[in-house]
């Protein structure tokens, strides 16, 4: 293989010289991973924002519309359905920054029995307490959603009762199935980053559980408050401390989020034979 071609084509690296393509910045937010202190002056931020807008050239390629991009849908139900209000926005930003996926910065909110769900195949459910028993309409809708190709991420921001109730309810949605532990060698953990542990704001449970539809993982359930690690306020401060691993654990939480999004779009692409030797080599 041509070494130059290899170096250039890292599933998309190194554009032709002189043609550095400006990147879309979702929502025009300039994001960094270092939290800004509340005492930083508004003028400084304003100048940075202005410069970003000025320097951002016009006319770069954009996806056709919101359905061409990855749009997160927050599922609404009777209960504390949105405990981490900024989590998805931040995750969308990180995904857009780190990967070639084009994301919509703001999530959509839909009821679990909404027919509009089918236009957004990524559904996020979060909670701090048990998920209420789903109504028949919600159950039927979710069943069809997952069977026809939808993906669901359940994120427990509390004491584990939300995760447990999700496992119970999804077992009703997908009869004949039970939540199973997602093994450490699942393609989910190598869909973009090589991830060793499913950390979130906490590491309450060292594994993820899930439900499959055919060979595809259709539901992923985390008991480690992923959203809590992602959430960042409008001033740029992380909303929650991450323990026990601190900021490095937050980084792993983002990587897991990126992987989950990448998996929802690419499924077992990284299990294709052509990838295996590279992944094995890097895992050693």
């Amino acid at each position, binding site marked *: 293989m*041509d070494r130059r071609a290899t170096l250039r084509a890292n599933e998309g690296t190194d554009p032709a010289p002189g043609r550095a393509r400006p990147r879309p910045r979702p929502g025009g937010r300039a994001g960094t991973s270092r939290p800004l202190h509340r005492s930083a002056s508004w003028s400084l931020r304003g100048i940075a924002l202005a410069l970003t807008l000025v320097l951002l050239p016009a006319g770069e390629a954009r996806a*056709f519309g919101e359905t061409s991009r990855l749009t997160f849908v927050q599922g609404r139900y009777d209960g504390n359905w949105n405990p981490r209000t900024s989590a998805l926005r931040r995750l969308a930003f990180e995904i857009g920054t780190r*990967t*070639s996926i084009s994301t919509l910065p703001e999530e959509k909110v839909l009821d679990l029995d909404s027919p509009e769900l089918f236009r957004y195949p990524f559904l996020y459910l979060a909670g701090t307490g048990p998920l209420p028993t789903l109504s028949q309409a919600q159950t039927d809708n979710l069943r069809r959603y997952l069977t026809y190709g939808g993906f669901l991420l359940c994120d427990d921001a509390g004491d584990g009762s939300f995760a447990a109730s999700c496992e119970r309810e999804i077992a009703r949605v997908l009869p004949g199935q039970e939540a199973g532990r997602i093994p450490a060698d699942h393609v989910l953990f190598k869909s973009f980053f090589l991830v060793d542990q499913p950390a979130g704001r906490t590491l309450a449970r060292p594994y993820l559980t899930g439900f499959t539809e055919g060979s595809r993982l259709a539901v992923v359930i985390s008991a480690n408050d992923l959203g809590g690690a992602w959430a960042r306020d409008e001033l740029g401060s992380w909303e929650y401390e991450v323990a026990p691993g601190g900021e490095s654990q937050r980084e792993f939480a983002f990587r897991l989020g990126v992987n989950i999004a990448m998996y929802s779009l690419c499924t077992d*692409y990284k299990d294709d034979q052509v990838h295996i030797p590279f*992944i094995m080599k890097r895992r050693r």
Partner: protein
Amino acid sequence: MEAVYNDWRVVLLSPWPTWLLVLLGALAVAGVVLAARGLRKERSGVRKTVLLSLRTVSMLAALFVILEPGVRLLQTAQVRSRLAILIDGSASMQLPTEAGGTSRAAEAAAWLSRVTPALQELEANYSLEYYQYDDGLQPIEASAAVGGLPSTGETTDLLPSLRALTGGGSHGGRKLAGAVVIGDGTDHGELKAGLGGATRKALEGLKIPVSTVAVGGGAVKDLAIEAVVVEDFAFVRNTVEIEAKVAASAMGTLDVPVVLRREGQVVSQQSVRVDPGERSYSVKFSFVPDEIGEFVFTVSAPVYEGEAIASNNSRSFVLKVIRDRVRTLLVVGRPSWDQRFLRTLLKTDPNVDLISFFILRTPQDNPKAGETELSLIPFPVQEIFDRQLKSFDLVIFQNFAYRPYRMDAYLPNIRRYVEEGGAFVMIGGESSFGEGGYDLTPLGEILPVEPVGVAPNEALFQPRLTEAGLRHPITQLASSAEANQAAWARLPELPGLNVTRAKPGARVLLDQPHLTAGGENAPVLAVGEAGRGRVMALTTDSSWFWSIVASGEGGSTSRAYERVWSNAIRWLVRDPELTPVIVRASQRSIEPGQPVFATITARGSDYGPAAGAEIEVSLIDAETGNTLRKERRSAGVDGTAQVELGTPQAGAYKIVARASLAGQELGEGFDVVAVRAASVERSDVQARPGLLREIAEVTGGGFVEASSGQLPPMDLAPPDVVEVGRAKDRPIWDRFWPLVILAVCLGGEWVLRRRWGYP
């Protein structure tokens, strides 16, 4: 004058019915038994013996009188049985008995001439019948048999001829005593594989001895491709194994090159060393077909001087090369739901072998991690688009920008790949069509659409099925036009498309009814031909709506997405069932002298039967490309036409049909046919005296070589003897002596009983 009686037999002349005679006989036996019972207590053995003997003799005498035996004098004559003499009249009898010798037919005639005196002696008891046999039995005159037969039969099948002898007709009531078969032993019918269980039983069931005379036992110089062992079909890009069976006779020691050709082109060559002690050889070829279709292959060896038959040095066969799975390359510019649903569909399709590459990270992206923490691999541009491209049946670019990967140098490869028979699809997105800069590239030249310089349109729209799309295979969601129209109308609206216009010659199957480009409605789905390949443009990145959204909002599982892509793949890779003109030869491999027949099926642009289509059919020599014959036909109501294309000589041929309807070309199709170099009869030089010997052994006949000049030992059944005319009865019961014996015995017994104190 007293008739001459030459035979006699004993008869019973009693007029009484049989049952009465039986009853009287039983009474006589009872009389003896009762006497024996009455003498049980007699102590004197002498008395017992005397009385019992007298009773027995008197009962026998009585029976003799009652049965009235006599002698019937007969006049008889002997009837001659039949003896059939069968002479092989097949084409193999023209072969020489040995190198430079006379023909086998001549040897058979010479033998008949030498044994004629012996045959004449047999005529005293047997009626000789002469027959010629090949695949049937024909009676001939004795003089024709002795003079030599023309031997033109194209195949030999002895067993049915023997059955015909024993089973058919009464022949005036004369039985068949046996048969004599004179031939070389070659058989291509029931005895082709020698004597097995069934054929052995069949010969035993004839119930006559079959004696055999073998001709042509000498060595004949010949090299032959006896058979080619190959499957009826092979998978493209998979190794095919072919075995050629070579037979050599009196060739000496020689290295023989054996060549495998496909329609004149050498595919593979092997060499086989021929030795005098060995007759059969196996030559194996293996190759990898790179093209689907039906092809005529020929295995051949050189013709050497002095060979008895030249035409058996080559053998042709037809091999159908099919696709096992459609090998598909999917290159995606960025992960999206459009890519997700397409990949899932292709991955789960058992007819598709999918290789996919997704750009997960562009140069502008910052993963905030080292390379070793990522699962990304290099995008092997040169490997795919230079070395491996031809291995794919279908290439799909889905919202893929070529520029960042310096693929300019490879785009001509893709164009050439399509023009040489490949298939290509471009799916919309912000990096496709004009937005991706493809318009001025070699790929842009082959796409069925071109950009109009307008930005992508994001308005929601309902794709409209065009007139061309109404019956095109790709957009067939239902069988009738109305149902198809309704099925498309039920699908959800799509958000956004690349704005393009169709090029001349392209077929637009779906369009945007509210958006024009270049004066026509903007295409959503368009197809076209590029050289020998096919291309498709899908200008939206939301066809996945036909899957999850159609199912979810429609209330039931929609198969539209699956059908459209499945249909598209079949059309793009030219699934034979979807071609507008289909040619089927009645036989792919025919004997020399047999005509070539074919059936042509023509379909209109709407893929319905093209009734009345004008069809031109050509028979083309596959090796030289010369057209040998042309015929014109009109398709019937069902779109088919039958045609005969004459009787070509040995070789490989293509039957090519072109159809047109109302001045419009419908398309072209072809099939292949191989005409054998020689019939089996004329290519098999080897005589089989062993088979003739076995036939004789099984049936109880004898065997000789013709060179002995003698009749084979024959254990023939003697002729039947039948009654002729008169018979005369002479009674013997009416003599005096039976009555005297009866009276003496009865009287003597009575006297002795009285004397010895019996009542």
